[in-house]
């Protein structure tokens, strides 16, 4: 009993010490970039290649250039398992020295978004998060470049209607979506467009617990015979939907996913049967580009990468998208460094950097990533950039670019964005609006 008591006292002392110690102070010669990653849990399959990409881009800069303009970039992951509760815990854990928050889930984004005005750390959510975050005057600290979900929905509709949404009149479009804030994101826009252009929208939710078994949902699709099925799926849901689609023999060329539903690993499962499936994307894999060659030379071949080379992860859409996400962030840091003439910019300076991103074609070329990312630029009023994207089509073995650059119908989206942003601000009053921004 005595030893037991001793251990109990010792361990509780250790526990208290660990719990109450403050994280180490920031250093001047480095920039701390935390990432709320998920390499565990039901979404790990899709999360891991993205995290690997983000990690490897930072490693490349540190290995090849000795950091960014001579400042070492410290990349640090905090595991959330796509769990909102863990995500908030990670946010609290990393925010002390962080220049940026990368929440990596719409649920976590919604949690940290109201705190961004208080903690004053920019949130970078490339291609995810809350679509009205595009309104930079209301959401001063949140960024979702280069395209929001509403942009994505608009791009898909434009593509499947050959550029004119009126062609969709009297058609039936099913939205197979994860029953989670992420999956519900496009519904307000699609509903508005359905009313305007006279097509029928049929939202089909897939609960988190039924991701792998979607027979009920696909039975409904078989019964309703929609002309198109759009998919807002993530993690295990994508693979489940694709296998069910093959089983019910739903025509693949009428099945279109958002950028997070275009994971090579999921389509490899169905292989040839998935031929024709499309996924809209703002990034395109290009393994021959100078950037990818450098990644190979400095990171992969030196064994510093965590990618699964046997599976061919190097060529995956998601891995290379992860690289692009870090590239966007680093561009923001770079802009802040130049503007304020500092080595390691603080969160507020980085916010300026992210508001003044200018990733035009020349700049993307200079990064060695030609064709891998849509060109876009941001401003204080526009935190998304609305670069648009391309359709990627599965050819049975890999994704290939299958369209010209698609752009969203901003005239249809903007009023809705303004309305939602204002609603959000008034529901969370007092909510500061950026009055200095005169755009």
């Amino acid at each position: 009993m005595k030893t037991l008591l001793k251990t109990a006292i010792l361990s509780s002392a250790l526990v208290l010490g660990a719990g109450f110690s403050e994280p180490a102070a920031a250093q001047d010669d480095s920039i701390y970039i935390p990432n709320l990653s998920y390499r565990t849990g039901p979404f790990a399959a899709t999360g891991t290649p993205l995290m690997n990409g983000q990690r490897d881009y930072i490693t490349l800069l540190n290995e090849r250039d000795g950091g960014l303009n001579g400042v070492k970039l410290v990349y640090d992951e905090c595991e959330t398992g796509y769990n909102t509760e863990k995500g908030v815990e990670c946010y609290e854990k990393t925010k002390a020295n962080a220049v940026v928050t990368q929440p990596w889930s719409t649920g976590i984004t919604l949690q940290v978004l109201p705190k961004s005005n208080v903690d004053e750390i920019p949130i970078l959510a490339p291609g995810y998060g809350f679509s009205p975050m595009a309104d930079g005057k209301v959401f001063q600290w949140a960024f979702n470049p280069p395209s929001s979900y509403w942009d994505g929905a608009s791009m898909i509709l434009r593509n499947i209607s050959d550029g004119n949404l009126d062609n969709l009149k009297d058609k039936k479009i099913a939205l197979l979506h994860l029953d989670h804030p992420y999956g519900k994101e496009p519904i307000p826009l699609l509903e508005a467009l359905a009313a305007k252009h006279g097509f029928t929208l049929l939202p089909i939710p897939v609960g988190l617990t039924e991701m792998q078994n979607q027979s009920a949902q696909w039975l409904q699709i078989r019964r309703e015979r929609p002309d198109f099925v759009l998919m807002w799926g993530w993690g295990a849901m994508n693979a489940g939907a694709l296998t069910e689609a093959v089983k019910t023999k739903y025509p693949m060329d009428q099945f279109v996913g958002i950028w997070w539903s275009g994971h090579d690993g999921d389509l490899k499962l169905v292989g040839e049967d998935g031929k024709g499936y499309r996924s809209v994307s703002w990034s395109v894999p290009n393994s021959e580009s100078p950037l990818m060659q450098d990644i190979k030379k400095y990171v992969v071949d030196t064994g510093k990468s965590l990618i699964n080379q046997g599976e061919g992860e190097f060529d995956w859409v998601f891995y290379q998208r992860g690289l692009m996400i870090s590239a966007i962030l680093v561009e923001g840091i770079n802009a802040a460094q130049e503007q304020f003439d500092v080595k390691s910019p603080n969160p507020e300076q980085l916010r300026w950097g992210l508001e003044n991103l200018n990733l035009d074609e020349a700049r993307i070329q200079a990064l060695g990533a030609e064709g891998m990312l849509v060109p876009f630029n941001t401003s204080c009023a526009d935190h998304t950039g609305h670069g648009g994207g391309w359709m990627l089509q599965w050819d049975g073995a890999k994704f290939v670019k299958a369209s010209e650059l698609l752009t969203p119908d901003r005239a249809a989206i903007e009023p809705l964005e303004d309305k939602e942003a204002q609603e959000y601000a008034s529901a969370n009053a007092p909510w500061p609006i950026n009055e200095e921004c005169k755009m």
Partner: protein
Amino acid sequence: MFYPTAGQFKTSYQADYALFPVRQDAFLLGVIALFAFVVFPLTASEFTFRALLTPVLIYSLAALGLNILTGYAGQLSLGTGAFMGVGAYACYKLVSIFPEMNIVVAIALSGFFSATIGVIFGLPSLRIKGFYLAIATLAAQFFLVWLFQKWGWLYNYNASGAIQVPNIALFGVTVAGPRATAIAQYYFVLCTVCVITVFAINITRGRIGRMWKAVRDMDIAAELVGINLMRAKLMAFFVSSYIVGIAGALFVFLWRGAAEANLFDIPLSFRVLFIAIIGGLGSVLGNYLGAILIVALPVIISTVPKALGLPIDAATAEHLNVMIIGALIITFLIVEPHGLARFWAIIREKLILWPFPH
């Protein structure tokens, strides 16, 4: 030596049924209260408040609610998560319909909504027992979460389907919403939890608590001695769901700041049930010990590799964490199947006798 009870004589009935018949218990509780009210707030960082202290308190409160139903009245329930959801959504609607309402009033009222729902889903308990009742409460779990998703009015038709907590001030201090400081929220939660704990201790050791225990131990015998089973069971559902509902309102308003329906799904119910079981069914203290083990320990363990400078990446650390916590739960349950509260009771007994073995 540490716990000498010799010389503490009870000379009146009052003293015999006092809350702390042994002086050291009161002293120990005083030390814990001193830590909770003074030492922690002075030393803790924001991370400690938001990831350790506040969640432990809220989860203990939810487990306390469940423990009243399962531990004291013997009615197994798997619907705790959904009842927490009822409390949270009720509080959200109250605050958005009556923005002037005091947050304390709103939280106290939201408990009545979950209590009512709890009584409705407790009705089957009059006919069915044990695992069959668990299945019936599971129905509440599925139905309510479905309702939270489908009934747009509940979340004010937000596009994301999530509820967001606005800034709410109490006597000039913001206690809920993004602008609230962690310390204000901690004190709010701590005070609420203290009040409800005192209430729970007194109700469980009084007439009503004995009634519940009689029903738990043998309901036919309880009926024969004149206990109204229907009243006892439904009262247990009412009190339990009330506390669980308040825990749910605190969960969203004083801690998370935003919530989607999925949050209140089965994993939350199981988590609360595990806290109650590992802490010890039929005890009040156990809920706190269980919450520390299930909620706080994973957070603390996850900071260890970094604190020691071990080069373990985040995903591996997470896997290790799950393994360690799993192993600890099994060890504790093997060492003491009646939970951590019983474990403490044994330690206390030995301390009273120490240094003599018998």
